[in-house]
Protein backbone atom coordinates (compact mmCIF):
# COMPACT_ATOMS: atom_id res chain seq x y z
CA UNK A 1 0.00 0.00 0.00
CA UNK A 2 1.74 3.13 -1.22
CA UNK A 3 0.25 6.47 -0.37
CA UNK A 4 0.64 9.42 -2.72
CA UNK A 5 0.44 11.88 0.17
CA UNK A 6 3.50 14.01 0.85
CA UNK A 7 4.48 16.47 3.55
CA UNK A 8 3.29 19.28 1.26
CA UNK A 9 -0.31 18.04 1.30
CA UNK A 10 -0.45 18.34 5.07
CA UNK A 11 1.38 21.69 5.08
CA UNK A 12 -1.08 23.16 2.57
CA UNK A 13 -4.07 22.00 4.66
CA UNK A 14 -2.39 23.47 7.73
CA UNK A 15 -1.70 26.74 5.92
CA UNK A 16 -5.30 27.01 4.73
CA UNK A 17 -6.60 26.39 8.25
CA UNK A 18 -4.23 29.07 9.55
CA UNK A 19 -5.45 31.50 6.86
CA UNK A 20 -9.07 30.81 7.89
CA UNK A 21 -8.13 31.53 11.49
CA UNK A 22 -6.48 34.82 10.52
CA UNK A 23 -9.55 35.78 8.46
CA UNK A 24 -11.75 35.10 11.48
CA UNK A 25 -9.46 37.18 13.70
CA UNK A 26 -9.68 40.15 11.34
CA UNK A 27 -13.32 39.98 10.26
CA UNK A 28 -15.27 39.02 13.38
CA UNK A 29 -16.28 41.44 16.14
CA UNK A 30 -17.48 39.00 18.81
CA UNK A 31 -14.66 38.42 21.31
CA UNK A 32 -15.64 34.76 21.79
CA UNK A 33 -15.55 34.01 18.06
CA UNK A 34 -12.20 35.80 17.80
CA UNK A 35 -11.01 33.44 20.51
CA UNK A 36 -12.24 30.43 18.53
CA UNK A 37 -10.37 31.68 15.45
CA UNK A 38 -7.25 31.86 17.64
CA UNK A 39 -7.77 28.21 18.59
CA UNK A 40 -7.97 27.35 14.88
CA UNK A 41 -4.57 29.00 14.38
CA UNK A 42 -3.07 26.94 17.21
CA UNK A 43 -4.49 23.77 15.70
CA UNK A 44 -3.08 24.60 12.28
CA UNK A 45 0.36 24.89 13.89
CA UNK A 46 -0.23 21.56 15.64
CA UNK A 47 -1.07 19.88 12.33
CA UNK A 48 2.13 21.21 10.74
CA UNK A 49 4.18 20.00 13.73
CA UNK A 50 2.71 16.50 13.65
CA UNK A 51 3.21 16.29 9.87
CA UNK A 52 6.88 17.29 10.16
CA UNK A 53 7.28 14.83 13.02
CA UNK A 54 5.87 11.98 10.93
CA UNK A 55 7.77 12.67 7.72
CA UNK A 56 11.11 13.26 9.47
CA UNK A 57 10.60 10.34 11.86
CA UNK A 58 11.41 12.52 14.88
CA UNK A 59 9.08 12.31 17.85
CA UNK A 60 9.93 15.78 19.25
CA UNK A 61 7.25 17.47 17.14
CA UNK A 62 4.55 15.42 18.81
CA UNK A 63 5.93 16.31 22.25
CA UNK A 64 5.78 19.98 21.31
CA UNK A 65 2.12 19.50 20.29
CA UNK A 66 1.49 17.93 23.69
CA UNK A 67 2.83 21.09 25.35
CA UNK A 68 0.88 23.36 22.99
CA UNK A 69 -2.37 21.61 23.93
CA UNK A 70 -1.59 21.94 27.65
CA UNK A 71 -0.77 25.65 27.29
CA UNK A 72 -3.86 26.23 25.12
CA UNK A 73 -6.07 24.76 27.83
CA UNK A 74 -4.61 27.17 30.41
CA UNK A 75 -4.88 30.06 27.93
CA UNK A 76 -8.55 29.34 27.19
CA UNK A 77 -9.38 29.28 30.92
CA UNK A 78 -7.71 32.65 31.55
CA UNK A 79 -9.06 34.25 28.35
CA UNK A 80 -12.64 33.21 29.01
CA UNK A 81 -12.36 34.48 32.59
CA UNK A 82 -11.23 37.83 31.18
CA UNK A 83 -14.18 37.87 28.76
CA UNK A 84 -16.62 37.07 31.59
CA UNK A 85 -15.12 39.85 33.72
CA UNK A 86 -15.40 42.29 30.78
CA UNK A 87 -19.02 41.27 30.18
CA UNK A 88 -19.85 41.83 33.82
CA UNK A 89 -18.54 45.37 33.61
CA UNK A 90 -19.66 46.43 30.11
CA UNK A 91 -22.57 44.06 29.30
CA UNK A 92 -21.09 43.34 25.86
CA UNK A 93 -18.45 41.17 24.22
CA UNK A 94 -18.29 43.08 20.95
CA UNK A 95 -14.79 44.42 20.49
CA UNK A 96 -16.27 47.46 18.74
CA UNK A 97 -17.72 48.65 22.04
CA UNK A 98 -14.72 47.79 24.22
CA UNK A 99 -12.80 50.95 23.37
CA UNK A 100 -11.84 52.22 26.81
CA UNK A 101 -8.14 52.06 25.99
CA UNK A 102 -8.53 53.66 22.57
CA UNK A 103 -7.09 57.15 22.23
Amino acid at each position, binding site marked *: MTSALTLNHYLIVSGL*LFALGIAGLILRRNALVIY*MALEMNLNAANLAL*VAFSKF*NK*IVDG*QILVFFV*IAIAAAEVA*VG*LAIIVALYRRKQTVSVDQLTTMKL
Partner: protein
Amino acid sequence: MNVHDILFWFFSIAMLLCGLFVIASRNPVASALFLVLLFVFLAGLFVLLEAFFIAAIQVLVYAGAVMVLFLFVIMLLDIKASERRKFNILGVIGAFSVAGAFIWELDIILSRPVQPLAGGGEELRGGLEQIVKPLFANYMLPFEVTALLLLVAMIGVVLLSKKELK
Protein backbone atom coordinates in the same frame (compact mmCIF):
# COMPACT_ATOMS: atom_id res chain seq x y z
CA MET B 1 -6.05 6.03 -4.70
CA ASN B 2 -6.24 3.94 -1.53
CA VAL B 3 -8.26 4.27 1.66
CA HIS B 4 -5.58 6.42 3.32
CA ASP B 5 -5.73 9.05 0.58
CA ILE B 6 -9.53 9.10 0.46
CA LEU B 7 -9.67 9.60 4.24
CA PHE B 8 -7.10 12.40 4.00
CA TRP B 9 -9.16 14.31 1.43
CA PHE B 10 -12.38 13.69 3.34
CA PHE B 11 -10.95 14.88 6.67
CA SER B 12 -9.16 17.88 5.15
CA ILE B 13 -12.10 19.17 3.14
CA ALA B 14 -14.57 18.57 5.98
CA MET B 15 -12.21 20.31 8.44
CA LEU B 16 -11.73 23.37 6.22
CA LEU B 17 -15.49 23.61 5.59
CA CYS B 18 -16.07 23.51 9.36
CA GLY B 19 -13.46 26.26 9.76
CA LEU B 20 -15.30 28.35 7.19
CA PHE B 21 -18.60 27.86 9.05
CA VAL B 22 -16.93 28.76 12.37
CA ILE B 23 -15.98 32.21 11.10
CA ALA B 24 -19.07 32.66 8.89
CA SER B 25 -21.98 31.72 11.16
CA ARG B 26 -23.52 34.59 13.07
CA ASN B 27 -24.67 32.58 16.07
CA PRO B 28 -21.73 31.93 18.46
CA VAL B 29 -23.26 28.62 19.60
CA ALA B 30 -23.20 27.36 16.00
CA SER B 31 -19.59 28.57 15.71
CA ALA B 32 -18.64 26.61 18.82
CA LEU B 33 -20.33 23.42 17.60
CA PHE B 34 -18.61 23.66 14.21
CA LEU B 35 -15.33 24.14 16.07
CA VAL B 36 -15.97 20.86 17.94
CA LEU B 37 -16.48 19.13 14.57
CA LEU B 38 -13.28 20.75 13.29
CA PHE B 39 -11.33 19.34 16.24
CA VAL B 40 -12.75 15.85 15.62
CA PHE B 41 -11.77 15.93 11.93
CA LEU B 42 -8.33 17.23 12.90
CA ALA B 43 -8.01 14.28 15.28
CA GLY B 44 -8.77 12.09 12.25
CA LEU B 45 -5.88 13.71 10.38
CA PHE B 46 -3.63 13.04 13.40
CA VAL B 47 -4.65 9.36 13.25
CA LEU B 48 -3.70 9.30 9.55
CA LEU B 49 -0.31 10.74 10.57
CA GLU B 50 -0.01 7.87 13.08
CA ALA B 51 0.02 10.21 16.08
CA PHE B 52 -2.56 8.24 18.04
CA PHE B 53 -1.75 9.72 21.44
CA ILE B 54 -2.05 13.28 20.11
CA ALA B 55 -5.35 12.37 18.42
CA ALA B 56 -6.66 11.04 21.73
CA ILE B 57 -5.74 14.12 23.74
CA GLN B 58 -7.03 16.33 20.91
CA VAL B 59 -10.47 14.81 21.36
CA LEU B 60 -10.28 14.63 25.17
CA VAL B 61 -8.81 18.06 25.91
CA TYR B 62 -9.92 20.22 22.97
CA ALA B 63 -13.22 18.74 21.82
CA GLY B 64 -14.07 17.77 25.39
CA ALA B 65 -12.80 20.17 28.03
CA VAL B 66 -12.01 23.36 26.12
CA MET B 67 -15.19 23.41 24.05
CA VAL B 68 -17.38 22.65 27.07
CA LEU B 69 -15.80 25.72 28.68
CA PHE B 70 -16.55 27.77 25.56
CA LEU B 71 -20.19 26.65 25.37
CA PHE B 72 -20.58 27.20 29.11
CA VAL B 73 -19.41 30.81 28.80
CA ILE B 74 -21.60 31.44 25.72
CA MET B 75 -24.67 30.16 27.58
CA LEU B 76 -23.68 32.12 30.70
CA LEU B 77 -23.32 35.42 28.89
CA ASP B 78 -26.53 35.14 26.83
CA ILE B 79 -25.01 36.56 23.66
CA LYS B 80 -27.34 37.38 20.81
CA ALA B 81 -26.47 36.53 17.23
CA SER B 82 -24.47 39.35 15.72
CA GLU B 83 -26.41 41.42 13.21
CA ARG B 84 -25.39 41.79 9.61
CA ARG B 85 -23.04 44.71 9.26
CA LYS B 86 -21.28 46.52 6.50
CA PHE B 87 -17.67 45.53 6.13
CA ASN B 88 -15.06 48.20 6.44
CA ILE B 89 -13.52 48.44 2.95
CA LEU B 90 -10.06 49.01 4.43
CA GLY B 91 -10.48 45.93 6.62
CA VAL B 92 -11.44 43.76 3.65
CA ILE B 93 -8.45 45.03 1.63
CA GLY B 94 -6.19 44.36 4.63
CA ALA B 95 -7.59 40.85 5.13
CA PHE B 96 -7.13 39.91 1.48
CA SER B 97 -3.59 41.34 1.33
CA VAL B 98 -2.62 39.39 4.45
CA ALA B 99 -4.11 36.19 2.99
CA GLY B 100 -2.42 36.85 -0.38
CA ALA B 101 0.97 37.46 1.24
CA PHE B 102 0.55 34.28 3.26
CA ILE B 103 -0.29 32.14 0.21
CA TRP B 104 2.61 33.71 -1.71
CA GLU B 105 4.96 32.81 1.13
CA LEU B 106 3.57 29.27 1.27
CA ASP B 107 4.13 28.92 -2.49
CA ILE B 108 7.78 30.04 -2.19
CA ILE B 109 8.47 27.70 0.74
CA LEU B 110 6.76 24.66 -0.75
CA SER B 111 8.40 25.06 -4.15
CA ARG B 112 11.78 24.27 -2.59
CA PRO B 113 12.73 20.68 -1.83
CA VAL B 114 12.48 19.92 1.87
CA GLN B 115 15.67 18.63 3.43
CA PRO B 116 14.94 15.81 5.87
CA LEU B 117 16.14 16.69 9.36
CA ALA B 118 19.10 14.84 10.78
CA GLY B 119 18.63 12.45 13.64
CA GLY B 120 15.54 10.68 12.37
CA GLY B 121 15.28 7.43 14.22
CA GLU B 122 13.16 4.40 13.59
CA GLU B 123 9.65 4.58 12.15
CA LEU B 124 7.19 6.29 14.50
CA ARG B 125 4.52 3.92 15.66
CA GLY B 126 2.54 6.62 17.48
CA GLY B 127 2.13 4.57 20.61
CA LEU B 128 2.61 5.98 24.07
CA GLU B 129 6.07 4.61 24.85
CA GLN B 130 7.78 6.45 21.99
CA ILE B 131 6.42 9.79 23.22
CA VAL B 132 6.65 9.27 26.93
CA LYS B 133 10.30 8.21 27.06
CA PRO B 134 11.73 11.51 25.72
CA LEU B 135 8.99 13.44 27.52
CA PHE B 136 10.23 12.25 30.91
CA ALA B 137 13.92 12.28 29.97
CA ASN B 138 14.80 15.23 27.70
CA TYR B 139 11.68 17.31 28.36
CA MET B 140 11.41 16.91 32.13
CA LEU B 141 11.92 20.62 32.91
CA PRO B 142 9.32 21.93 30.41
CA PHE B 143 6.92 19.31 31.71
CA GLU B 144 7.31 20.57 35.30
CA VAL B 145 7.11 24.21 34.19
CA THR B 146 3.85 23.40 32.40
CA ALA B 147 2.47 22.03 35.65
CA LEU B 148 3.43 25.27 37.40
CA LEU B 149 1.87 27.30 34.60
CA LEU B 150 -1.42 25.42 34.92
CA LEU B 151 -1.41 26.22 38.65
CA VAL B 152 -0.76 29.91 37.94
CA ALA B 153 -3.57 29.93 35.34
CA MET B 154 -5.94 28.34 37.82
CA ILE B 155 -5.14 30.94 40.50
CA GLY B 156 -5.50 33.71 37.90
CA VAL B 157 -8.93 32.45 36.83
CA VAL B 158 -10.17 32.28 40.42
CA LEU B 159 -8.90 35.83 41.03
CA LEU B 160 -10.42 37.16 37.79
CA SER B 161 -13.85 35.67 38.51
CA LYS B 162 -14.13 37.23 41.93
CA LYS B 163 -16.76 39.93 42.16
CA GLU B 164 -14.50 42.58 43.59
CA LEU B 165 -10.78 42.57 43.05
CA LYS B 166 -9.31 43.44 46.41
